[in-house]
């Protein structure tokens, strides 16, 4: 059953060839057998999942037939779920129970999805390797001495190992797309505002977006459909109408104009990755797309701008974790200063503290103009570059990451080398654009990701383009070995 895509499982559920209870039990069994090695989940909701599956089956007997009814899912542990723990990968929230569910979680539960558990992640979504989780690292199912990417590393590893047909992730600078690329999956970060952020623990509020990671673009389209839409509890969510993401998936893409930025094929790019991406672009040409060269002259400023804006917002967003009302509190504080210093010092991991310090510095009196304000101006320039490109092309294509998955521990001592993983992904967040990553090849047995970036609210076109590629290729069908 696990070899089937979400869309195929949906059809089996609809035809009655399989019940949600059977499907759920199948995945819970796989999790029990396979996850002790991978460490991709931080909590499993055995009883809750069984009850939700039973309810879904009852709804179906009652005549309901929505496409996600009874389909299992795992949520990244950044989404609050009423009734269970939400840790955000941090000691700070090791025992935190939210009295509410994130809008994304409520929407997917309302659609009938069955929550199997919560996925491991980099602490507070800060990281590109999932090595920053308080609950331990996650192994890449393709090569277990490699990282799965981050911060949605648990989500990517568990879907790659087929412990669920889909998982939610969040993407602040590439945290859906980079692990999707490292684990041979399809993952989409929607337009900023497409999906509600309510109940999703904030890292950098102006960059954070939720999205799905699954085997195929079609699966992503089905789940994103149910996640999207205006939420009155999130002032930054968009009132734009949500189109039917699956309606035109099988149409031809002939005439699609694909922009290829020269800047994406620069020195930092692994040769094997470059070859795989070039091959994928040729495949698109065969499908009738037109390749055009575009320029993104400020591409080199993306990482510096991102690593000012994101930590600045994070430094403020994470101030609420002070040991006063909820979360970790140090033992026997002697006074208020001690309570703050030790609760935060002991509750947060090293990378989180590093970014809080960078962000605090960037917002300080006397440095604000030189860092935060300047970074926001650079953000505008990068946005202008994309606007100019989109006046000529429909989508911009390139590699998702400069390299395939790297060895565990290889970059933990060099934060800047780690940050360069986000070279091609952060611009979509800085500009609020939707972007998708899909598998397009392998280098030394590790998957390679192709990224398409679209215009605001143009997710349908990205999903359509990815699906067309997947109809013509089989990279998305490959699975790691040892997951039987």
């Amino acid at each position: 059953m696990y070899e089937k895509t979400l869309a195929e499982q949906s059809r089996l559920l609809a035809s009655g060839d399989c019940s949600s209870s059977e499907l759920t039990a199948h995945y819970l069994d796989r999790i029990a057998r396979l996850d002790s090695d991978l460490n991709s989940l931080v909590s499993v909701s055995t009883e809750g999942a069984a009850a939700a599956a039973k309810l879904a089956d009852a709804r179906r007997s009652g005549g309901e037939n929505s496409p996600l009814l009874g389909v299992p899912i795992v949520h990244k542990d950044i989404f609050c779920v009423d009734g269970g723990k939400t840790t955000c990968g941090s000691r700070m929230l090791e025992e935190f129970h939210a009295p509410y569910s994130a809008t994304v979680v409520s929407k997917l539960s309302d659609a009938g999805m069955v929550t199997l558990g919560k996925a491991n992640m980099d602490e507070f979504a800060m990281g590109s390797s999932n090595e920053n989780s308080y609950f331990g690292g996650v192994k890449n199912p393709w090569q277990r001495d490699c990282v799965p990417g981050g911060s949605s590393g648990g989500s990517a590893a568990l879907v790659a190992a087929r412990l669920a047909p889909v998982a939610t992730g969040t993407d602040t600078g590439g945290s859906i797309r980079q692990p999707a690329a490292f684990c041979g999956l399809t993952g989409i970060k929607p337009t900023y505002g497409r999906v509600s952020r309510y109940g999703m623990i904030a890292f950098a509020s102006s960059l954070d977006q939720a999205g799905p990671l699954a085997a195929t673009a079609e699966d992503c389209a089905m789940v994103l459909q149910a996640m999207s839409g205006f939420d009155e509890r999130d002032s930054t969510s968009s009132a734009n109408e949500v189109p039917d993401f699956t309606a035109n998936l099988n149409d031809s893409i002939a005439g699609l104009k694909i922009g290829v930025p020269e800047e994406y094929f620069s020195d930092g790019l692994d040769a094997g990755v470059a070859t795989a991406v070039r091959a994928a672009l040729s495949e698109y040409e065969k499908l009738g797309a037109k390749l055009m060269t575009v320029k993104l002259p400020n591409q080199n400023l993306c990482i510096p701008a991102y690593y000012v804006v994101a930590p600045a917002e994070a430094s403020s967003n994470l101030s609420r974790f002070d040991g006063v009302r909820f979360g970790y509190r140090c033992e026997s504080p002697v006074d208020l200063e001690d309570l703050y210093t030790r609760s935060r010092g002991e509750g947060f991991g090293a990378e989180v503290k590093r970014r809080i310090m960078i962000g605090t510095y960037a917002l300080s009196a006397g440095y604000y103009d030189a860092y935060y304000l300047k970074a926001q101006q650079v953000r505008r320039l990068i946005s202008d570059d994309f606007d100019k490109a989109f006046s000529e092309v429909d989508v911009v294509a390139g590699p998702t990451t400069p390299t395939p998955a790297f060895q565990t521990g290889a970059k933990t001592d060099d934060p800047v080398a780690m940050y360069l993983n986000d070279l091609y992904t952060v611009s979509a967040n800085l500009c609020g654009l939707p972007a998708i990553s899909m598998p397009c090849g392998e280098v030394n047995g590790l998957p390679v990701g192709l990224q398409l970036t679209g215009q605001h609210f143009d997710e349908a076109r990205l999903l359509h383009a990815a699906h067309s590629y997947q109809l013509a290729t089989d990279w998305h069908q490959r699975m790691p070995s040892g997951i039987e």
Partner: protein
Amino acid sequence: MSWETVIGLEIHAQLATRSKIFSGASTEFGAEPNTQACAVDLGLPGVLPVVNAGVVSMAVRFALATDSSVTQRSQFARKNYFYPDLPKGYQISQMALPIVGEGSVTVGLPDGTEKNINITRAHLEEDAGKSIHDLFDGNTAIDLNRAGTPLLEIVSEPDMRSAAEAVAYARYIHALVRYIDICDGNMQEGSFRCDANVSVRPSGQSEFGTRAEVKNLNSFRFLERAILFEVERQIDVLESGQEVVQETRLYDSDKDETRSMRSKEEANDYRYFPDPDLPPLVVEDAFIADVRSAMPELPKVRRARFVEQFQLTPADADAMMSDRDTADYFEAMLDGQKFTPKLAANWISGELSGRLNKENLAIQDSTVQPDRLAMLLARVEDGTISGKIAKQIFDDMWSSDASADDIIDKKGLKQITDTSAIEAMIDEVIAANPSQVAEYQGGKEKLLSFFVGAVMKASKGKANPGQLNQILKDKLQSQ
């Protein structure tokens, strides 16, 4: 050397919305601790603020009432600092782009003159919770009911030159915010509080002196006392050859002095930046037009109309304008009635307000509503009853639903204006008091009031006083 005082005020007016500025929790005062704080107010992870539209229209109302500009694209910003009663570790406020821009008000001063005070800005922000240090020994208790309560911080230019001017301005703003219904003005509950920026400089010098900010003054008396103390302190410092330190000070009302809280060097770096959870606050022209059309007539316009239309003296007009409910009561009384507005004003300031004070009632809750009081005064004006009888009837009306006419009829209180009836009563009194008549005629004219009183008593107070006086004098002289 003579010194000049320079004062600017920052006034925090709590906006009178039922729910909080960024959440649906209630703002009601006095609830059990921590029962009116929802997930948003508690700053739980993942929750987001949503602006209460009510606060936006209230801020625009304030702008329109003070000739201030409305910033049509204002912005919320985060003011970052750690404090246990600040749940998110930052306060959502406005910094670079406040919703209300420059404006000005004309304030009446105690000496009868007027002064223009310029408003620099007014911005929206959320209140913090409350730390209570004396409830549990050695521990601090936190009540987050107040967290997220909407505030409008009104910042003036340093235009005031004395404590009296500062108090007059604060009183003006206090009356205004209540009048336009955006703040209940309750200073005991903290709904209206002031910070005073005070400095002194040698008279004639154009540069300002170094200022101290005195925080959290929650009565006009404390505002005045704190400024007076601070001015004296600063002059002492300067005259002893030292410098005034820029700092935040606290007023201790028990000791009637200000104390240093923190100096400029110790001040927090608040690391303000635009709140990414809240898009720019856009106020469309149509929205402003709607607020404008729903605005009550402003106090200064209404006061002028009272003087012009009703021929009130400025003092009476001020009395009728003491608050909006009084002005509404006054106008409701005059609606369609035929008595002089002056009579209505006298009754509101005298009999009615005395009674309301005694019973501790607000005018809008008065047992005697404007239509009932108007009928009573109409009977005074048309001579049916005397003013004195009217006061008796008013007392009866207070404890019943009866109209003035019903009471007059039932108790037979109609004034006696029949000359022959009055003459008959006078004749009886004269006949019964021959010795007093003789004394009167012998030149002791003060006895007239004795006769008036006796006849009034005989008439049970109903004799028309004018007629009585005239006839009595005639009769006593012709005896």
